């Protein structure tokens, strides 16, 4: 159980931190389609008989790289393009899942990638997840100033010689790794839980970007560990439990914000 708890804590923090950049740099749609590339990759793994995590990583990262490189060329059509690929990946995933349901073993695997299975976390995958998280932290520490400048204003940062597209491609690659590795925990249906809900919750807690940057991974981590515990206690699918925990934290932070706003207005009166 300790292995699973550590893995879910890391996955939550990783996705929460990436969620901050995805939201600030308006990469939500692009990340959404990358997550579906991970799902399609995992589904292909079932049919082809490979480890689904590695096929998910392969397709998600290759697609993230291609998308990042295409962005400057397609400009304002990048979102439409990524949604086109989303359709392709969804179709591919469904076709593979359909083809993969021929054996009992495959059915269990299909269940794992659709609604998550904490049993799929192995020491090797935990090590991989930890490595990706460490590399992301090292990258953010090294490029903090440039990333802050991009988050504040992409155009001014670009005019000042910050390689904006390089950083966007790198962040999309991290999204590819993170979604592929988180797929086995949350499942394909709820893959976005840890990418998007923590940043919405963190925005209720603080408006300051540099605080949200650390609150979001914390919310992600707490949601993930809390959800896993809930799943263990109530025998619920792990992805569902994580999503419900994250949503509960978001609801609580929203209520706290509303109460704070009312108190503040009363003070002004």
């Amino acid at each position, binding site marked *: 159980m300790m292995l699973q708890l550590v893995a879910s804590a890391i996955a939550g923090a990783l996705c929460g931190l990436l969620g901050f950049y995805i939201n600030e740099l308006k990469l939500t749609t692009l990340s959404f389609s990358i997550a579906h590339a991970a799902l399609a990759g995992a589904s292909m793994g079932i049919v082809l008989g490979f480890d689904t995590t590695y096929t998910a990583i392969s397709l998600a990262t290759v697609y993230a790289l291609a998308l990042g490189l295409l962005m400057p060329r397609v*400009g*304002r059509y990048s979102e439409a393009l990524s949604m086109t690929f989303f359709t392709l990946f969804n179709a591919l995933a469904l076709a593979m899942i359909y083809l993969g349901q021929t054996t009992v073993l495959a059915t269990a695997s299909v269940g794992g990638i659709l609604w998550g299975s904490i049993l799929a976390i192995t020491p090797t995958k935990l090590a991989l997840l930890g490595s990706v998280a460490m590399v992301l932290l090292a990258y953010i520490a090294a490029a903090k*100033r*440039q990333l*802050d*400048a991009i988050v*504040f204003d992409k*155009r*001014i*940062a*670009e*005019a*000042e*010689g*910050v*390689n904006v597209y390089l950083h966007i491609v790198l962040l999309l690659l991290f999204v590819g790794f993170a979604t592929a590795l988180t797929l086995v925990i949350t499942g394909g249906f709820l893959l976005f839980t840890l990418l998007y809900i923590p940043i919405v919750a963190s925005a209720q807690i603080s*408006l*300051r*970007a*540099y605080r949200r940057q650390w609150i979001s991974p914390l919310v992600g981590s707490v949601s993930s560990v809390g959800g896993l515990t809930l799943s263990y206690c109530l025998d619920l699918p792990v992805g569902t439990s994580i999503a419900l925990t994250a949503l509960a934290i978001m609801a609580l932070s929203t209520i706290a914000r509303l109460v704070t706003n009312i108190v503040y207005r009363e003070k002004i009166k």
Partner: protein
Amino acid sequence: MELRPDIRREAVSLTNVSVAYTGSDRPAIRDITISIPLGKLVVVTGPNGAGKTTLIETCLGLLKPVKGVAKLLGVDTRSRSIVKIRRFCSYVPQDFMRPPHDHYTAYQVISMGLAQLSGYSDRDGRITAIAGKLGIEELLDKPIGMLSGGEQQRVFIARALVRKPRVLFLDEPFSCIDTGSRRLVAETIYEYVEREGATAVIVSHELSPLQGLADALIKMDSGRVTEIRGL
């Protein structure tokens, strides 16, 4: 390897440059040929829609010409190395205003100007000095979104100057600043250009703050340069 701009070359050189936006059937600027040497304070003026902002974004390589060649500090803006060359430039856009919920402090915003620069020393000293010159030292700890338009504009000009750029592009830098402070800002830019031998390209409808300070004037209308003086 760190690139150095060739200071013997022009700051900006455009040869028969035309730029069109995606989906538009007519160019925003047409057949423009200008050469701006280093060490000049150049004012670009003209009516709305003349192509002034397009011109400076083309000079910076943020927009690519559909025809002609644009060079910044001797480097073609289509080449990959333009990203590194931009480290020697600063840009204050026309639409700089930040919303009230933006909580980066003025100090953090100015400090972001140094994000891509290496080898600089005394960051605090540089920021405080430039903030003092522009009269915003009292605002450094305040969130940018809580400042007035004029105060924000001065913060962005401070960010541009703290980088010690070779070429400074300012799009309507006096638009939100009160009449009394405009001359102070113009003189700060002028002093910088004189002291560092840099070039400032200023797009402005408001020419009075720059009286006696500008070296050259470029007038534009309907995407074309209609008059060049002092170059």
